[in-house]
């Protein structure tokens, strides 16, 4: 039995799943003043009084970290940054407590200038005197050699209750994003820690341990206590819950488009061969571009309640929502009103919808029905255009080998999966514009909670080997070990997969869900003076985002 809960901006969805059946589902308004409390309240409702039901696992998707960042209700963080040569420090987004220090590592992970102990001590002392309790440490190319960040931690760390280290956030290159990610992680650490305490106290009441997982932005889960030091991974898990929900409710094995049409916005996601696409460089939250691995989703300002106006000879839909549809007492005509007039959706008050649309029809000089049809078509066309543009952007993404350029995957979605209020009337029309087939998963109103419940634990790992330097680096774990000059790419791949398996298990993965894949596999001869001096090997592997085993894709019994 699995309990899945998604705390969204407006609603909290919860489901209880047993084997292949959804036993119970509820949807309640979210209390944004007490996110932790409302989450546990819902859990309690579904699990019943203590002692009546024990779930095998509980999965939460929560906006605790996201809200703290968006509302700027975060801790003050001291940042110690080793930027080395390159872009000017003024181009790095940090808050006011950022200090740049000497010391840097080059692109091969070779230490060029060591850390200046005295300089770091003075800065740390200054932060400490200011009452700062959490710091972030990030160095340029620290993913190539973690020594510099570890040295700074060793010199400064004892004065603070938390230190976020850049290389632990992601194995990917991008110093400005590493700085932002490290900052955010340290900034929400305390708030998130308190949330975990609340959750742990709740579970303790049951007298019996059961694992609790948190949904991450990449559509994977992480055991909650393992997430304590990496709260930044849990931001923006909402769209991930929705995408994983569609994945579990729909028969999605090919290239596909997923749409979640809401009142104000429509979220678009894409699947390649049934696997959701990830944001290539990392997620963006507010002004922060980060290295957080997350699903590639796009939100556009159009939905069932978008305000409609007539402008320059045509109907303009959104991006603003002035309230609910006119038929439901709202102030402005909306696509929902047009659908009511067309008889595509059951009217609450058809007369109100007609009254709201009449001035627009008069402006356009056409009949009420024609105006409704045109508004409906334009709404669908608008969404279809955004989907097409997103697919084009994905296909135009640069690649760096001749093989990929000539033979690379081209995304050609043939199916459109739609969830959300106006899914039923709009899906066929949008699909028509996109020249693909529309599918609406049944009982999609709790898709987010189902998605959270059935998502598997994911993680990734980067291994770099430099046979000239005779060093192997396991990036995200901060480990460097010696290797022989004859070390091969195959050995590096084996180590990467072994370590990834261990890492995933320690994060709460079940052995049967470990679908591992190598996502980057490069080996370059390093030639110096016309002789091969060594090999530069780069391997990246991941647990593929997906569902836990035992749940078939699109299994209708999951949607009872």
């Amino acid at each position, binding site marked *: 039995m699995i309990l899945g809960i998604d705390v969204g901006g407006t609603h909290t969805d919860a489901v209880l799943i047993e084997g292949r059946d959804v036993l119970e589902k509820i949807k309640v308004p979210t209390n944004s003043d007490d996110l932790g409390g409302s989450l546990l309240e819902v859990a309690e409702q579904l699990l019943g009084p203590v002692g009546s039901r024990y779930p095998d696992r509980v999965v939460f998707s929560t906006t605790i970290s996201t809200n703290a960042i968006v509302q700027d209700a975060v801790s003050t963080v001291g940042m110690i940054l080793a930027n080395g*040569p*390159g*872009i*000017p*420090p*003024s*181009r790095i987004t940090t808050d006011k407590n950022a200090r740049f220090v000497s010391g840097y590592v*080059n*692109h*091969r992970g070779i230490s*060029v200038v060591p850390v200046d102990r005295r300089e770091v001590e003075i800065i740390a002392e200054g932060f400490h005197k200011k009452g700062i309790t959490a710091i972030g440490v990030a160095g*340029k*190319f620290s993913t190539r050699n973690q020594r510099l960040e570890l040295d700074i931690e060793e010199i400064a760390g004892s004065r603070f209750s938390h230190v976020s280290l850049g290389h632990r956030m992601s194995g*990917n*290159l*991008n*110093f*400005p*994003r590493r700085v932002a990610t490290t900052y955010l992680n340290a900034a929400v650490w305390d708030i998130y820690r308190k949330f975990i305490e609340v959750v742990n106290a709740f579970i303790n009441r049951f007298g019996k341990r059961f694992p609790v997982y948190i949904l991450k932005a990449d559509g994977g889960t992480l055991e909650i206590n393992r997430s304590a030091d990496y709260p930044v991974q849990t931001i923006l898990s909402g769209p991930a819950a929705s995408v994983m929900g569609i994945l579990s409710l729909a028969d999605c094995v090919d290239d596909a488009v997923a749409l979640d049409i809401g009142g104000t916005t429509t979220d678009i996601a894409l699947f390649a061969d049934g696997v959701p696409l990830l944001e290539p*460089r990392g997620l963006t939250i507010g002004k922060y*571009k980060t290295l957080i691995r997350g699903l590639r989703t796009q939100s556009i300002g159009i939905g069932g309640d978008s305000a409609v106006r007539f402008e320059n000879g045509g109907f303009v839909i959104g991006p603003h929502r002035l309230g609910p549809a006119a038929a439901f007492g709202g102030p402005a005509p909306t696509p929902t009103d047009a659908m009511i007039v067309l008889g595509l959706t059951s009217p609450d008050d058809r007369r109100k919808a007609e009254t709201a649309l009449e001035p627009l029809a008069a402006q356009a000089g056409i009949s009420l029905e024609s105006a409704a049809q045109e508004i409906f078509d334009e709404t669908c066309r608008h969404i279809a255009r955004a989907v097409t543009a997103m697919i084009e952007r994905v296909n*135009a*993404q*640069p*690649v*760096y*080998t*001749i*093989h990929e*350029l*000539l033979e690379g995957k081209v995304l050609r979605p043939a199916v459109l999966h739609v969830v959300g209020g106006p899914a039923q009337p709009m899906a066929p029309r949008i699909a028509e514009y996109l020249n693909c087939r529309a599918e609406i998963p049944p009982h999609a109103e709790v898709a987010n909670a189902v998605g959270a419940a059935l998502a598997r634990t994911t993680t990734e790992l980067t291994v770099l080997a430099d046979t000239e330097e005779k060093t192997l680096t396991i990036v995200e774990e901060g480990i460097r070990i010696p290797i022989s000059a004859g070390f091969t790419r195959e050995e590096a791949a084996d180590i990467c997969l072994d370590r990834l398996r261990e890492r995933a298990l320690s994060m709460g993965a079940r052995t049967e869900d470990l679908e591992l894949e190598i996502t980057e596999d*490069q080996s*370059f*001869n*390093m*030639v110096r*003076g*016309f*002789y*091969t001096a060594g090999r*530069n090997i780069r391997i990246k592997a991941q647990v593929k985002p997906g569902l836990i085993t035992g749940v078939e894709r699109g299994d209708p019994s999951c949607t009872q």
Partner: protein
Amino acid sequence: MHSVKRTGLIFFPAFDWAISPTHPEREERLLYTQDQVFEEGLLDFENILEYKPGLAGQDDINRVHICVPEASAICTESHLISAGGAITAADKVLRGDVDNAFALVRPPGHHAMRVVHGARGFCNINIEAVMVEYIRRHYGHRKIAIVDTDCHHGDGSQDIFWHDPDTLYISVHQDGRTLYPGTGFPNETGGPNARGYTLNIPLPPETSEEGFLFALDNLILPVLEDFKPDIIINSAGQDNHYSDPITNMNFTAQGYAILTDRLKPHIAVLEGGYSVETALPYINVGIILAMAGIDYSFVKEPDYNPAALRQDPEVTAYIERLVPALYDQWRQRGSLKASSDIGTFERRSRSIYYDTDNIHEEQIESVRICDDCGGVVTIDSMASTGNRIFAVIVPGRACAACRREGEALFAATKSGDVYRYVYLQDRDRDVFTRK
């Protein structure tokens, strides 16, 4: 202060292509550049836009080259992509999507001449030249300047534009007496109809920032001001760097960034540069920042030491004599033009060696002396591969007389016993024929 520009970046490191495993032109070449560009977060800057390269077509190649026996035999996919990358850069700039663009692509092209029997100087086809003629064909720009800052003389680019008064080709390079390909002397100034529009600036070994920037400020920039090109292209070779393993100059990442900042090319195209680990990452970041109008003063090599790179006074004195002399030569270019003998042909005979593919070529090139256009050109070329060909090139904006001559010569020359193939490249009408 710098003014921010929208800069297009076409980055194609071709991680699966090499001339041979230990050749300088190998998979590893742009690896550390990619690392540095990614780690600096350059692709996140809102005014730096990355684009995927397109593929050049056979017609794009045939507009510039006479490939023997044909383009598909000379160009592999890698060449079509790097030429395509240069074309993409041009498209983005000329359609107004960006203010300028950098094609950070490989393999390079500036040693590829008009007739191509194989690879020389790591180059098969001349990607800038392909781009220049593409621009003329699709956007109609006439006056184009190429400033070649590769350490090696761009003998291929010089050859292709030798007779074209609409293309100003300026090459600044290490003196040909000390480096491949051994050409690019001040007296190489262009054919009889384009005298002066080839400008070679050979600098002595161990020229530093000081010398390069002196030549830029006192010669290249004033000449560009006189010529008033519609478009400035930089053949951005990076082997003048002090750490380059196959050259002897003392230029730096800061120097390249300052040069780019002052030259303000519309399009930069990577050429050579083989200090892949200690120079290229920093030079390329410097060039990208300079093009985008972002502060590049923090870009420095880890071992950068201006004192150690200070220019020898003798080198300085040499450059200070050379530069004004070359500027005078440029200003007197009108008097260099052949004014008599209009309608006659001027010939030159050359031996060309293809070092990369070990091919020898003997070539006789003739140009019709003409006051009204670049002049019709014929080439009789015999290579050690056994191929002998004859080519007629009708220039862009060809005059009626040159067109008549060219068409007649093509009609009169038969393929078969003497010439394996006879080619007509009609640049004016964009027609390419082989018989």
